[in-house]
Protein backbone atom coordinates (compact mmCIF):
# COMPACT_ATOMS: atom_id res chain seq x y z
CA UNK A 1 0.00 0.00 0.00
CA UNK A 2 1.29 3.41 -0.85
CA UNK A 3 2.09 6.17 1.61
CA UNK A 4 2.46 3.43 4.25
CA UNK A 5 -0.07 4.57 6.78
CA UNK A 6 0.38 3.10 10.19
CA UNK A 7 -1.95 2.30 13.05
CA UNK A 8 -1.54 5.66 14.75
CA UNK A 9 -2.89 7.44 11.67
CA UNK A 10 -6.18 5.58 11.93
CA UNK A 11 -6.62 4.99 15.63
CA UNK A 12 -9.39 6.61 17.60
CA UNK A 13 -9.48 8.07 21.08
CA UNK A 14 -10.08 5.55 23.88
CA UNK A 15 -12.71 7.87 25.34
CA UNK A 16 -14.95 7.35 22.31
CA UNK A 17 -16.16 4.25 24.15
CA UNK A 18 -17.48 3.75 27.69
CA UNK A 19 -15.05 2.41 30.27
CA UNK A 20 -16.13 0.11 33.09
CA UNK A 21 -14.27 -1.73 35.85
CA UNK A 22 -14.48 -5.52 35.77
CA UNK A 23 -16.69 -5.71 38.82
CA UNK A 24 -19.63 -3.93 37.21
CA UNK A 25 -22.56 -6.25 36.59
CA UNK A 26 -24.13 -7.11 33.26
CA UNK A 27 -27.22 -5.12 34.20
CA UNK A 28 -25.12 -2.04 34.99
CA UNK A 29 -23.42 -2.35 31.61
CA UNK A 30 -26.79 -2.70 29.89
CA UNK A 31 -27.83 0.61 31.48
CA UNK A 32 -24.60 2.21 30.31
CA UNK A 33 -25.22 1.01 26.77
CA UNK A 34 -28.71 2.51 26.86
CA UNK A 35 -27.39 5.85 28.08
CA UNK A 36 -24.19 6.11 26.08
CA UNK A 37 -25.48 4.79 22.80
CA UNK A 38 -29.19 4.24 22.49
CA UNK A 39 -30.47 7.47 24.04
CA UNK A 40 -27.89 9.62 22.33
CA UNK A 41 -28.56 7.69 19.11
CA UNK A 42 -24.88 6.96 18.65
CA UNK A 43 -24.36 3.62 16.95
CA UNK A 44 -20.67 3.27 16.32
CA UNK A 45 -19.37 0.15 14.66
CA UNK A 46 -18.74 -1.85 16.83
CA UNK A 47 -20.91 -0.92 19.78
CA UNK A 48 -18.46 -1.86 22.53
CA UNK A 49 -17.60 -1.34 26.18
CA UNK A 50 -14.01 -1.41 27.42
CA UNK A 51 -13.29 -3.28 30.66
CA UNK A 52 -10.49 -2.16 32.98
CA UNK A 53 -8.99 -3.31 36.28
CA UNK A 54 -8.37 -1.25 39.44
CA UNK A 55 -5.18 0.20 38.03
CA UNK A 56 -6.75 1.21 34.71
CA UNK A 57 -5.21 -1.64 32.72
CA UNK A 58 -7.35 -2.79 29.82
CA UNK A 59 -8.67 -6.26 30.54
CA UNK A 60 -11.11 -6.87 27.71
CA UNK A 61 -13.96 -5.72 25.55
CA UNK A 62 -17.69 -6.43 25.44
CA UNK A 63 -19.98 -6.17 22.45
CA UNK A 64 -23.74 -6.73 22.43
CA UNK A 65 -23.39 -10.39 21.52
CA UNK A 66 -21.25 -11.02 24.61
CA UNK A 67 -24.02 -9.62 26.78
CA UNK A 68 -26.65 -11.89 25.22
CA UNK A 69 -24.31 -14.79 25.68
CA UNK A 70 -23.95 -13.93 29.34
CA UNK A 71 -27.70 -13.91 29.80
CA UNK A 72 -28.22 -17.32 28.25
CA UNK A 73 -29.02 -19.89 30.92
CA UNK A 74 -26.41 -22.55 31.34
CA UNK A 75 -28.54 -25.47 30.22
CA UNK A 76 -28.90 -23.90 26.79
CA UNK A 77 -25.27 -24.57 26.08
CA UNK A 78 -24.65 -27.75 24.12
CA UNK A 79 -23.06 -30.37 26.33
CA UNK A 80 -20.11 -32.26 24.98
CA UNK A 81 -20.69 -35.95 25.03
CA UNK A 82 -17.88 -38.27 24.14
CA UNK A 83 -19.72 -40.50 21.66
CA UNK A 84 -22.62 -38.45 20.34
CA UNK A 85 -22.07 -35.45 18.12
CA UNK A 86 -23.10 -32.05 19.36
CA UNK A 87 -26.69 -31.25 18.61
CA UNK A 88 -27.85 -27.71 18.42
CA UNK A 89 -31.50 -27.34 19.06
CA UNK A 90 -32.54 -23.77 18.46
CA UNK A 91 -36.07 -24.87 19.40
CA UNK A 92 -34.86 -25.34 22.98
CA UNK A 93 -34.71 -21.57 23.15
CA UNK A 94 -38.39 -21.67 24.03
CA UNK A 95 -37.30 -22.78 27.49
CA UNK A 96 -35.08 -19.71 27.73
CA UNK A 97 -38.09 -17.60 26.85
CA UNK A 98 -40.16 -18.91 29.72
CA UNK A 99 -37.39 -18.72 32.25
CA UNK A 100 -36.29 -15.27 31.16
CA UNK A 101 -37.51 -13.43 34.19
CA UNK A 102 -35.95 -15.77 36.72
CA UNK A 103 -32.81 -17.15 35.11
CA UNK A 104 -31.62 -14.30 32.92
CA UNK A 105 -32.31 -11.63 35.50
CA UNK A 106 -30.20 -13.57 37.98
CA UNK A 107 -27.45 -13.98 35.44
CA UNK A 108 -27.51 -10.22 34.81
CA UNK A 109 -25.97 -9.73 38.24
CA UNK A 110 -22.77 -11.50 37.15
CA UNK A 111 -19.69 -9.32 36.89
CA UNK A 112 -18.70 -8.41 33.34
CA UNK A 113 -15.30 -10.03 33.84
CA UNK A 114 -17.15 -13.30 33.21
CA UNK A 115 -18.51 -12.30 29.81
CA UNK A 116 -15.83 -10.05 28.34
CA UNK A 117 -13.54 -11.02 25.51
CA UNK A 118 -10.07 -10.77 27.07
CA UNK A 119 -7.78 -8.22 25.43
CA UNK A 120 -5.16 -10.71 24.31
CA UNK A 121 -4.18 -9.13 21.01
CA UNK A 122 -2.99 -5.61 20.42
CA UNK A 123 -0.98 -3.46 18.03
CA UNK A 124 1.59 -0.71 18.51
CA UNK A 125 1.11 2.82 17.12
CA UNK A 126 3.77 2.31 14.47
CA UNK A 127 2.57 -1.08 13.28
CA UNK A 128 1.30 -1.37 9.73
CA UNK A 129 -2.39 -1.36 8.84
CA UNK A 130 -1.95 -4.82 7.39
CA UNK A 131 -0.74 -6.17 10.73
CA UNK A 132 -3.93 -4.92 12.37
CA UNK A 133 -5.98 -6.42 9.55
CA UNK A 134 -4.20 -9.75 9.95
CA UNK A 135 -4.99 -9.94 13.65
CA UNK A 136 -8.62 -9.03 13.05
CA UNK A 137 -9.04 -11.65 10.33
CA UNK A 138 -7.31 -14.49 12.13
CA UNK A 139 -8.77 -13.88 15.55
CA UNK A 140 -12.22 -12.69 14.51
CA UNK A 141 -11.92 -9.26 16.10
CA UNK A 142 -13.47 -5.94 15.19
CA UNK A 143 -11.58 -3.87 17.71
CA UNK A 144 -7.93 -3.84 18.73
CA UNK A 145 -6.29 -1.85 21.51
CA UNK A 146 -3.23 0.20 20.56
CA UNK A 147 -0.54 -0.06 23.20
CA UNK A 148 2.66 1.94 23.36
CA UNK A 149 5.65 -0.14 24.50
CA UNK A 150 3.24 -3.00 25.20
CA UNK A 151 1.87 -1.15 28.20
CA UNK A 152 0.33 2.27 27.71
CA UNK A 153 -3.14 2.21 26.22
CA UNK A 154 -3.12 5.06 23.73
CA UNK A 155 -5.93 4.31 21.30
CA UNK A 156 -8.27 1.89 19.57
CA UNK A 157 -8.30 0.69 16.02
CA UNK A 158 -11.45 -0.60 14.42
CA UNK A 159 -12.36 -2.78 11.50
CA UNK A 160 -14.24 0.07 9.81
CA UNK A 161 -11.21 2.31 9.58
CA UNK A 162 -8.97 -0.53 8.46
CA UNK A 163 -11.50 -1.50 5.81
CA UNK A 164 -11.78 2.10 4.65
CA UNK A 165 -8.04 2.43 4.18
CA UNK A 166 -7.52 -0.91 2.48
CA UNK A 167 -10.53 -0.46 0.21
CA UNK A 168 -9.26 2.95 -0.90
CA UNK A 169 -5.97 1.35 -1.83
CA UNK A 170 -7.75 -1.35 -3.83
CA UNK A 171 -10.01 1.08 -5.68
CA UNK A 172 -7.26 3.54 -6.53
CA UNK A 173 -6.42 3.52 -10.24
Amino acid at each position, binding site marked *: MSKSKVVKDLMIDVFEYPHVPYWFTISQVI*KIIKVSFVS*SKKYPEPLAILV*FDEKYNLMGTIVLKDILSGLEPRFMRPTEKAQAYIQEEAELSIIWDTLFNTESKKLAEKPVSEIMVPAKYFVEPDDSITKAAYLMIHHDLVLLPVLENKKKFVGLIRLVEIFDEISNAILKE
Partner: protein
Amino acid sequence: MELLELIDRQNHRKLYVQLYDIIKKKIEDKEWSVGFRIPIEQELCKVFNVSRSTVRSAILELVRQGYLTRQQGRGTFVSKKVISDKLTMFTTFGELMLDEGIDFSTDVLAQTIMMPVDDLSDKLNISGDKHIIYIKRLRKVDYTPILIQETYIPFHICPPILEEDVQKNSLFELLEKKHGIHLTGVRNYFDVKYLNADEGMLLDSSESSPALVLTQHFFSGETQIMYMRSIKKPGRFELLIEFEKKDR
Protein backbone atom coordinates in the same frame (compact mmCIF):
# COMPACT_ATOMS: atom_id res chain seq x y z
CA MET B 1 4.83 38.53 22.83
CA GLU B 2 6.75 35.28 22.67
CA LEU B 3 4.96 32.04 21.99
CA LEU B 4 6.55 30.45 25.00
CA GLU B 5 3.73 28.22 26.14
CA LEU B 6 1.73 26.59 23.46
CA ILE B 7 -1.79 25.37 23.70
CA ASP B 8 -1.70 21.62 23.35
CA ARG B 9 -4.64 20.57 21.22
CA GLN B 10 -4.04 16.90 21.93
CA ASN B 11 -4.52 17.58 25.60
CA HIS B 12 -7.91 16.52 26.87
CA ARG B 13 -8.31 19.57 29.06
CA LYS B 14 -10.47 22.25 27.53
CA LEU B 15 -8.51 24.84 25.59
CA TYR B 16 -9.77 27.69 27.71
CA VAL B 17 -8.56 25.96 30.88
CA GLN B 18 -5.10 25.66 29.36
CA LEU B 19 -5.14 29.32 28.38
CA TYR B 20 -6.36 30.20 31.86
CA ASP B 21 -3.40 28.35 33.37
CA ILE B 22 -0.90 30.01 31.05
CA ILE B 23 -2.11 33.54 31.82
CA LYS B 24 -2.44 32.77 35.53
CA LYS B 25 1.18 31.64 35.55
CA LYS B 26 2.27 34.84 33.85
CA ILE B 27 0.56 36.78 36.62
CA GLU B 28 1.90 34.61 39.43
CA ASP B 29 5.42 34.73 38.04
CA LYS B 30 5.02 38.51 37.89
CA GLU B 31 5.74 38.48 34.17
CA TRP B 32 2.55 40.51 33.96
CA SER B 33 2.67 42.68 37.06
CA VAL B 34 -0.20 44.24 38.99
CA GLY B 35 -1.72 47.07 36.98
CA PHE B 36 -0.49 45.76 33.62
CA ARG B 37 -3.05 46.05 30.84
CA ILE B 38 -3.29 42.67 29.14
CA PRO B 39 -3.35 42.43 25.31
CA ILE B 40 -6.72 42.75 23.62
CA GLU B 41 -8.81 39.71 22.69
CA GLN B 42 -7.77 39.83 19.09
CA GLU B 43 -4.08 39.74 19.90
CA LEU B 44 -4.48 36.87 22.36
CA CYS B 45 -6.38 34.92 19.69
CA LYS B 46 -3.54 35.41 17.26
CA VAL B 47 -0.69 34.65 19.64
CA PHE B 48 -2.20 31.48 21.09
CA ASN B 49 -4.01 30.50 17.92
CA VAL B 50 -7.35 29.95 19.59
CA SER B 51 -10.84 31.21 18.95
CA ARG B 52 -12.35 34.34 20.46
CA SER B 53 -14.70 32.34 22.62
CA THR B 54 -11.78 30.42 24.10
CA VAL B 55 -10.06 33.70 24.98
CA ARG B 56 -13.29 35.10 26.41
CA SER B 57 -13.88 32.03 28.60
CA ALA B 58 -10.34 32.12 29.96
CA ILE B 59 -10.51 35.86 30.70
CA LEU B 60 -13.91 35.46 32.32
CA GLU B 61 -12.60 32.81 34.67
CA LEU B 62 -9.53 34.90 35.53
CA VAL B 63 -11.79 37.82 36.35
CA ARG B 64 -13.99 35.55 38.48
CA GLN B 65 -11.01 34.24 40.38
CA GLY B 66 -9.79 37.76 40.99
CA TYR B 67 -6.63 37.74 38.87
CA LEU B 68 -7.89 40.32 36.38
CA THR B 69 -10.28 43.26 36.53
CA ARG B 70 -12.17 44.84 33.70
CA GLN B 71 -12.36 48.57 33.40
CA GLN B 72 -15.11 49.72 31.09
CA GLY B 73 -13.67 51.38 28.01
CA ARG B 74 -10.09 51.08 29.20
CA GLY B 75 -9.24 47.39 29.06
CA THR B 76 -8.49 44.43 31.28
CA PHE B 77 -5.84 44.74 33.97
CA VAL B 78 -3.94 42.46 36.30
CA SER B 79 -5.38 43.02 39.74
CA LYS B 80 -4.17 42.35 43.24
CA LYS B 81 -5.77 39.03 44.20
CA VAL B 82 -8.30 39.29 46.97
CA ILE B 83 -8.99 36.32 49.21
CA SER B 84 -12.69 35.64 49.34
CA ASP B 85 -14.65 36.18 52.47
CA LYS B 86 -15.97 32.62 52.51
CA LEU B 87 -15.48 29.85 54.97
CA THR B 88 -12.53 27.60 54.26
CA MET B 89 -12.79 23.97 55.05
CA PHE B 90 -10.33 21.33 56.07
CA THR B 91 -11.49 17.81 55.59
CA THR B 92 -8.65 15.85 54.12
CA PHE B 93 -8.09 12.93 56.37
CA GLY B 94 -4.35 13.40 56.12
CA GLU B 95 -4.44 17.02 57.11
CA LEU B 96 -6.57 16.30 60.16
CA MET B 97 -4.55 13.45 61.51
CA LEU B 98 -1.14 14.94 60.88
CA ASP B 99 -2.02 17.81 63.16
CA GLU B 100 -2.07 15.48 66.10
CA GLY B 101 1.07 13.64 65.13
CA ILE B 102 -0.74 10.39 64.46
CA ASP B 103 0.84 8.01 62.02
CA PHE B 104 -1.50 6.96 59.27
CA SER B 105 -1.10 5.03 56.04
CA THR B 106 -3.14 4.66 52.87
CA ASP B 107 -3.78 1.76 50.52
CA VAL B 108 -4.96 2.76 47.06
CA LEU B 109 -7.43 0.04 46.19
CA ALA B 110 -8.51 1.49 42.85
CA GLN B 111 -7.59 4.35 40.53
CA THR B 112 -9.44 3.82 37.30
CA ILE B 113 -12.23 5.06 35.06
CA MET B 114 -15.89 4.19 34.97
CA MET B 115 -19.21 5.49 33.68
CA PRO B 116 -21.72 6.94 36.14
CA VAL B 117 -24.10 4.10 37.03
CA ASP B 118 -27.01 4.02 39.42
CA ASP B 119 -27.54 7.58 40.67
CA LEU B 120 -23.96 8.74 40.25
CA SER B 121 -24.80 11.01 37.31
CA ASP B 122 -27.28 12.86 39.52
CA LYS B 123 -24.83 13.01 42.42
CA LEU B 124 -22.17 14.53 40.19
CA ASN B 125 -24.60 16.55 38.11
CA ILE B 126 -23.24 15.25 34.81
CA SER B 127 -24.72 13.33 31.90
CA GLY B 128 -24.58 9.55 31.90
CA ASP B 129 -22.20 9.29 28.98
CA LYS B 130 -19.32 11.14 30.67
CA HIS B 131 -16.31 9.18 31.96
CA ILE B 132 -15.45 9.46 35.66
CA ILE B 133 -12.21 8.91 37.55
CA TYR B 134 -12.82 6.55 40.47
CA ILE B 135 -10.38 6.39 43.36
CA LYS B 136 -10.84 4.03 46.29
CA ARG B 137 -8.56 4.27 49.30
CA LEU B 138 -8.34 2.54 52.65
CA ARG B 139 -7.01 4.73 55.45
CA LYS B 140 -5.29 3.05 58.37
CA VAL B 141 -3.95 4.35 61.64
CA ASP B 142 -1.27 2.24 63.27
CA TYR B 143 -2.09 -0.40 60.65
CA THR B 144 -5.69 -0.60 61.81
CA PRO B 145 -8.06 0.15 58.94
CA ILE B 146 -10.55 2.81 59.94
CA LEU B 147 -11.83 4.60 56.85
CA ILE B 148 -12.87 3.63 53.32
CA GLN B 149 -12.91 6.57 50.93
CA GLU B 150 -14.36 6.47 47.44
CA THR B 151 -13.89 9.51 45.27
CA TYR B 152 -15.56 10.25 41.95
CA ILE B 153 -14.27 13.06 39.74
CA PRO B 154 -15.57 13.67 36.21
CA PHE B 155 -12.65 12.96 33.91
CA HIS B 156 -12.91 16.24 31.98
CA ILE B 157 -12.53 18.24 35.20
CA CYS B 158 -8.96 17.07 35.73
CA PRO B 159 -7.65 14.21 33.54
CA PRO B 160 -4.17 14.13 35.12
CA ILE B 161 -5.63 12.97 38.46
CA LEU B 162 -5.85 9.49 36.93
CA GLU B 163 -2.06 9.27 37.07
CA GLU B 164 -1.24 11.20 40.21
CA ASP B 165 0.10 9.52 43.32
CA VAL B 166 -2.98 9.56 45.53
CA GLN B 167 -1.41 7.38 48.14
CA LYS B 168 0.95 10.08 49.30
CA ASN B 169 -0.90 13.19 48.23
CA SER B 170 -4.21 14.65 49.22
CA LEU B 171 -6.65 15.10 46.34
CA PHE B 172 -7.46 18.60 47.52
CA GLU B 173 -3.84 19.63 47.32
CA LEU B 174 -3.43 18.09 43.91
CA LEU B 175 -6.52 19.81 42.55
CA GLU B 176 -5.83 23.20 44.08
CA LYS B 177 -2.09 23.59 44.02
CA LYS B 178 -1.02 21.45 41.13
CA HIS B 179 -3.95 21.77 38.75
CA GLY B 180 -5.39 25.14 39.66
CA ILE B 181 -8.89 23.93 40.44
CA HIS B 182 -10.20 25.92 43.35
CA LEU B 183 -12.59 24.32 45.80
CA THR B 184 -15.09 26.97 46.73
CA GLY B 185 -17.78 24.99 48.50
CA VAL B 186 -18.82 21.66 49.92
CA ARG B 187 -22.05 20.00 50.93
CA ASN B 188 -21.77 17.32 53.61
CA TYR B 189 -24.30 14.61 54.36
CA PHE B 190 -24.07 12.36 57.40
CA ASP B 191 -25.74 9.02 57.87
CA VAL B 192 -25.29 5.69 59.56
CA LYS B 193 -25.17 2.37 57.75
CA TYR B 194 -24.59 -1.29 58.43
CA LEU B 195 -21.47 -2.62 56.75
CA ASN B 196 -21.87 -5.05 53.90
CA ALA B 197 -19.59 -8.08 53.55
CA ASP B 198 -16.93 -6.32 51.43
CA GLU B 199 -16.83 -3.24 53.63
CA GLY B 200 -16.66 -5.41 56.75
CA MET B 201 -13.71 -7.26 55.34
CA LEU B 202 -11.83 -4.10 54.44
CA LEU B 203 -12.44 -2.49 57.81
CA ASP B 204 -11.79 -5.69 59.72
CA SER B 205 -15.26 -5.56 61.23
CA SER B 206 -18.18 -7.92 61.17
CA GLU B 207 -20.78 -7.66 58.45
CA SER B 208 -23.81 -5.57 59.55
CA SER B 209 -21.88 -3.69 62.20
CA PRO B 210 -22.72 0.03 62.20
CA ALA B 211 -20.58 2.70 60.59
CA LEU B 212 -20.70 6.41 59.81
CA VAL B 213 -21.19 7.43 56.21
CA LEU B 214 -20.06 10.89 55.17
CA THR B 215 -20.91 11.92 51.63
CA GLN B 216 -19.47 15.13 50.31
CA HIS B 217 -20.18 17.14 47.17
CA PHE B 218 -17.36 19.51 46.31
CA PHE B 219 -17.85 22.57 44.12
CA SER B 220 -15.66 24.95 42.22
CA GLY B 221 -17.96 27.86 41.58
CA GLU B 222 -21.13 26.47 40.04
CA THR B 223 -19.55 23.23 38.87
CA GLN B 224 -19.51 20.13 41.00
CA ILE B 225 -16.01 18.74 40.69
CA MET B 226 -15.96 15.82 43.10
CA TYR B 227 -18.15 13.43 45.02
CA MET B 228 -16.61 11.59 47.95
CA ARG B 229 -18.10 8.87 50.11
CA SER B 230 -16.32 7.93 53.33
CA ILE B 231 -17.21 5.04 55.59
CA LYS B 232 -15.82 5.04 59.10
CA LYS B 233 -16.21 2.34 61.67
CA PRO B 234 -16.67 3.21 65.35
CA GLY B 235 -13.44 3.41 67.24
CA ARG B 236 -10.55 5.31 68.53
CA PHE B 237 -10.54 8.22 66.11
CA GLU B 238 -12.96 10.99 65.32
CA LEU B 239 -13.55 12.70 61.99
CA LEU B 240 -13.05 16.41 62.24
CA ILE B 241 -14.47 19.01 59.90
CA GLU B 242 -13.16 22.44 60.67
CA PHE B 243 -14.29 25.77 59.34
CA GLU B 244 -12.26 28.91 59.41
CA LYS B 245 -13.37 32.35 58.35
CA LYS B 246 -10.68 34.29 56.55
CA ASP B 247 -10.52 38.05 56.94
CA ARG B 248 -9.72 40.31 54.01
